[in-house]
């Protein structure tokens, strides 16, 4: 039984490494709780989120902005919606380094993620698979570790066709939950060299560029007027 769990990579063994390579997340509170103080630079990070628009990408933006300074691509495989290049550029990401791949079938999505990891041309791979078995995630984890490329898998609670509680051999698994419109609770479900931690509350950077900064009352009047 124990051997079976070892083989599946579901048990972390202490002797493996001291501090895995990591990328700064840009959030001090999150860094404190992650091994190596950042996103795993050579492994798969699974991000489970309940719906679009809770801050699932804003969480990665500081890291992506840093990665885009390298002359290597950030590959987005099968993003569920259309990317807005203006917003990415405003967040400091060099959009020349972004490659968007949109395969149709799930097997092609998984293949494209793996190709991206193995190519040596990517500084990070972001993927939105429709489903991914433990074996498939393990393959990605091995590719990411061999090529020292971070891989982020996004799992939407409704769109992902498998129970999200399913155990996979990823390096880090997070569950996101919105607290308010610009606060996000990050729950670390699994990490290397550490125990799951209590949910961490993060304030997201939503730049305020609108002409009327925070006219909640005025807007509400507008809102009722519209009805």
């Amino acid at each position, binding site marked *: 039984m124990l051997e079976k769990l070892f083989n599946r990579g579901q048990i972390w063994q202490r002797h493996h490494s001291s501090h895995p390579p990591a990328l700064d997340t840009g959030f001090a509170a999150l860094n404190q709780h992650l091994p190596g103080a950042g996103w795993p630079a050579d492994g798969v990070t699974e991000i489970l989120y309940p719906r679009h628009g809770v801050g699932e990408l804003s969480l990665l933006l500081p890291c992506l902005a840093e990665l885009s300074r390298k002359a290597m691509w950030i590959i987005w495989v099968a993003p569920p919606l259309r990317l807005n*290049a203006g*917003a990415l550029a405003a967040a400091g990401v060099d959009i020349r380094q972004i490659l968007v791949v949109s395969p149709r079938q799930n097997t092609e999505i998984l293949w494209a993620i793996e190709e991206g990891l193995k190519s040596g041309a990517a500084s990070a791979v972001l993927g939105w698979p429709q489903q991914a078995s433990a074996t498939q995630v393990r393959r990605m984890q091995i590719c990411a570790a061999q090529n020292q490329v971070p891989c982020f898998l996004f799992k939407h609670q409704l769109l992902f066709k498998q129970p999200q509680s399913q155990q996979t051999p990823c390096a880090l698994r997070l569950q996101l939950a919105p607290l308010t419109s610009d606060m996000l609770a990050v729950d670390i479900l699994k990490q290397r060299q550490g125990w799951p931690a209590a949910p961490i509350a993060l304030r997201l950077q939503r730049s305020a560029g609108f002409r009327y900064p925070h*006219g909640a009352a005025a807007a509400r009047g507008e809102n009722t007027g519209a009805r």
Partner: protein
Amino acid sequence: MNWLYIHLPHLYGETWLADFHSSQPMALTRAQGQQIDAINPAARTCGVDIDMSLSTAFCLCPQLRASVLDARRQRRALQRAAAIAARHCAWVAEDPPCGIYLEIASMAKLLGRALQAQSTLQQVFQQRGYSAVIAAAPNPKAARLLARAGRSQCCDQRQFERCLGDIPVTALGIDAKTELRLAKLGLASVEDLARLPHGDLSYRVDTGLALYVDRISGRQTWLPPPFQAPEQFRWQLDLEQDFDSLEPLRFFLAKGIGEFCHFLQQRCLAAQALQLTLLHRRRPPTNVDVRLAAIDNRPESWQYMLSNTVNRLQLEAPIIAMQLRASVFEALDRQERQLFKSVSQESGEKKSQLLNRLGARLGMGRIHFLQISTDPRPEYQTVYASQAAVQKHRPPAGRNTPLWLAPQPLPTDIDQYTISRGPLRLNTGWWDRNGAHRDYYIASHTTLSTQWVFRQPSGLWYIHGWFA
């Protein structure tokens, strides 16, 4: 030696404008110029002339259609005409912008004498819709002078010298200043010029003109540089029976690719695109474009790309023959000769390798780079392009836009939202049919997802993006 000159006065119009010889008056102007460079016969009957200013021309003929002459298309038009001439003659030379030299003495067995050659070529060009003036003379510049003076003649040396008296100096195409100087000296025809001693003409008028006259009269030999037709690759395999699938034909396709790469390597060239044509018995042929991410001439890259393209292909009918064609090539980089590769070169190679692999399996149409356009409408601002932008984009200032955009704005019910910021009015797009009149708000849904919604003047609300 005997030379033929083909003057194509309407080359550009006849090549690129389909209705050039219709009754619609047309004029072509040089890029950024207001002077007319070429006109069609209908415009000439209205009184429009070459070198006239465009505004004068419009006064004379209000229904005139003017277009700008593109230098690159002009060169291509001449190349096409030269390629036609090259089928009949071994030594063909281009004379930009609209003339071709042909050496016909060595082709006498094939083309016959000058007169026969002239009529053959006249017919060839007429069939293709060109109006050509063709003249033959003992040397190239002499033939050119005759053709440009509008004389379709075949002359030997003596006849040529005789007809020089009728050709005015304006036919030489020299600049206005020199022309004026010649007029002041009382020199009206080319014969007058040819009679003068070389030294005098060179000293008193112009050295270049003296040399030109020497070349026309044959006192000095001048030969035009031969035209080289652009390279083309073409490979065809006729099948002995009809095939329903390409599976058994992979071996033959591989052979074709081998020949293609051999063709490229022999010439130190590389290509980016290749066209595979599958011929059917009772259907128009199927064309498949095989494209690589970067130029290449190695069989393994082409082989991989072609076999994956073939995998995705669904045959609509049995095939009876296959063709491979390519006509655009590039010279290989010089840096390739270095023994050790630089870091940037190596990463560039890895990138194009990845693009090739992804493109081969998914199709090049499923791989995109991002670019930002200047369109203020958010749905047109992000451009999914096939090439990465060359320059770094500056983010559009002062705008707060979401990371995700909906492919289409989705109708929604505003009761479920709390508005936190706004409005931002967007009133644009009057130049096409997709005008946008919207008030944008940042609003938070009851499920705590932050969204970008807008209200149209009609009062309807739409979701346009998610602040992910």
